[in-house]
């Protein structure tokens, strides 16, 4: 009897339980979502405020009048040159991704497939370059590119990507090492040369990790400020981060936060797009490289 009652008593809340807990769960998720989205909301709201409203404290949650003109201002204001900077950033990012994926995968393929005397040492040497922070190499690199006459062009931002990146080489090599040797034997039996093994066999199998490399490189290049500042002199060559940093450069004037937020929204679009497109492969890539 007592057993029966306990099981009945246990049954009751169990039936209600999932309902309540799922409601609570959803509520908790909603709260966290709202908290996570609030900076984003603040960005959008500020982008649509007039200068006077932007300065008000406490800030208004919803703009009193929507200043859509802020977005237009970015493109028509000849001092900002937003469109041009956007284009430059896209050029640098796209070529950087292309260069890094191509060169790093080639080097990683070499490190993972061939054994030679000193190849481990060589790999360690490549990895050790990860320990050099950019400020340590920036002056010598700057001198090099200035001597080559490439100062004030986008090339110094793009070209280094075509000689590989230690971090990406490491990432790719770890992935390539997990591919079975039998696969390559089969390829060789079918008459593939070494380049064919790399191009037609390894790369198609490495989709997730290549997506990861592409996204990382894109984001790094897209956000990079210091290198463009050093190399670029003419406003026509400026990239987005320089333009946006310049908007709050004056210690003598109000920072146009509304324009800056409008610019931030537009600047985050390519990253969001890239992530949405590559998301499935990207997550897969992280899981795989982490596991194996």
């Amino acid at each position, binding site marked *: 009897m007592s057993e029966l009652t306990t099981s009945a008593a246990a049954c009751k809340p169990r039936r209600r339980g999932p309902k309540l807990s799922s409601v609570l769960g959803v509520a908790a998720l909603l709260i966290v979502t709202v908290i996570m989205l609030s900076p984003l909301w603040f960005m959008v709201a500020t982008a649509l405020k007039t200068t006077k409203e932007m300065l008000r404290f406490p800030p208004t949650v919803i703009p009193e009048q929507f200043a859509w003109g802020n977005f237009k201002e970015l493109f028509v204001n000849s001092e900002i040159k937003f469109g041009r900077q956007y284009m430059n950033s896209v050029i640098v990012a796209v070529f950087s991704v292309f260069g890094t994926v191509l060169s790093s995968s080639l080097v990683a393929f070499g490190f993972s497939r061939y054994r030679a005397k000193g190849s481990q040492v060589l790999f360690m040497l490549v990895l050790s370059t990860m320990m050099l922070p950019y400020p340590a190499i920036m002056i010598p690199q700057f001198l090099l590119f200035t001597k080559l006459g490439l100062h004030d062009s986008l090339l110094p931002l793009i070209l280094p990507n075509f000689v590989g990146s230690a971090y990406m080489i490491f990432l790719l090599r770890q992935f390539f090492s997990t591919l079975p040797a039998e696969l390559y034997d089969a390829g060789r039996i079918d008459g593939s040369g070494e380049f064919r093994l790399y191009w037609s066999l390894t790369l198609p199998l490495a989709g997730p990790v290549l997506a990861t490399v592409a996204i990382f490189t894109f984001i790094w290049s897209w956000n990079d400020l210091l290198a463009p500042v050093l190399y670029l002199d003419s406003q026509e060559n400026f990239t987005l981060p320089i333009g946006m*940093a310049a908007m709050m450069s004056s210690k003598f004037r109000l920072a146009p936060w509304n324009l800056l937020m409008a610019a931030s929204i537009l600047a985050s679009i390519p990253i969001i797009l890239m992530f949405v497109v590559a998301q499935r492969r990207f997550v897969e890539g992280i899981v795989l490289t982490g596991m194996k």
Partner: protein
Amino acid sequence: MRGKGKWATVPLGAAVLTAMTATGCSGGGGGSGGEKVTITHYTIDSPDRTFVEKLIPDFEKAHPNIKVKVTKAPYEQFDSKLQSAIAAKNAPDVTSHWGYGGFMEYYNKGMLMDLTPYLEEGGFKASDYNIPDSVMDIYKVDGKTYGIPLNSYVTVMLYNKDLFDKAKLEYPPTDYEDKSWTFDKMVDYAKKMTVDSTNLAEAQYGVDFGWGERDQRPQYFGANVYSEDTWTNGGKPTEINLSKPETIDAYKKIYGLIWDQKVSPTAAFSKSVSGQFGDPFLSGKIGMSVVGSWSLASAKDFSFNVGVAAVPQGPNEKVRSVLYVDPLFVLKDSKHPKEALEWIKYLITTEVQEKSIELSGGNPPVNQKAAEKYYSNFEGIDPEQIKQVYEGAFKYGFESYNHLISNYSQINELFINELAPVENGDKKAEEVLPVIEEKLKKLLQRVNE
């Protein structure tokens, strides 16, 4: 492999092309007679600085042999770009200390060209450009001129007229000779406007006393952190007076505004209403703000009515305002100092200085004749009042320490870091000052050796 080879040709091709263009350029302009030279003007990438680009066409018309190129960087990266350009022997010809470093830092690093011979050769007279001699002297070391003043900012008091009206207070005076306007009276006024509350929406404060940098602030109270020889020996203090009673008292008064009188905003409040580097005065929740006159330029955007007043009379009868005179330098590596100087001289003529006020959105000219126009540049503020405040500030002014002291960025950082616990209310000024003195002495010993 093929891909790599193809790309390897890109830098090579581009290098050849650039080299060809470069040689073509100098070849075309070569010849000793009408040799055309290009000078570079390096500045911060913000409209109140880059407006100089609009002055170039007229200058080039008048000087057909000189071409001016403007290069720029955001404020935060100004110094790193300049340093790498100098390292790469690609230094600009004309610039100023617009980044974190100041004049003495540039001077001691040997970055600046002595302009004296060129000025003498051209028969330069400061009076031709209506620059007071005292202002010209700021950038002289041992009688040699290293910089030509361009803009002169002063310290002013801005006040929120709406808050004054609400508290039924009389507006503060603009006349520096009105000695009834004292520090104590300012504190009284501030008390009447302060609502000290933990609720951010309700809280408001009477005064934000942003007089000079942290190490200069005691000067207002008659105490000097550095020994007198600092101003004559190239900005290298031989003695630090941080543990002297008058200095400790000065800091107690400064931070007493926040923690004892509770009439000034805490650092936390300022950050929450205006962000990391913003000015809390803009939020409309500060009654009076003692601040650099650059804040005037944004006055038209404020969401409240703003007035300008004299900095009140403090214990120091001689110094009531910090002056920030921005110069232009010719860098030592410049190959065309004469042409660079021509450009600088052009920028300080009355006509160009007047034009610059509007183009820059309100930069105060160093040329006193052009200054008349500057005073009437601010909507809603009587030009006579601005003029009076400026004239008083010049009379009772002292140049900002950051222009005069060597290795100032490191010193300033030390003060900011070490005084943070005092600003946050965790420690008392008298506890940290001896520590700062100790650290500062070590720092100076290291950097000035």
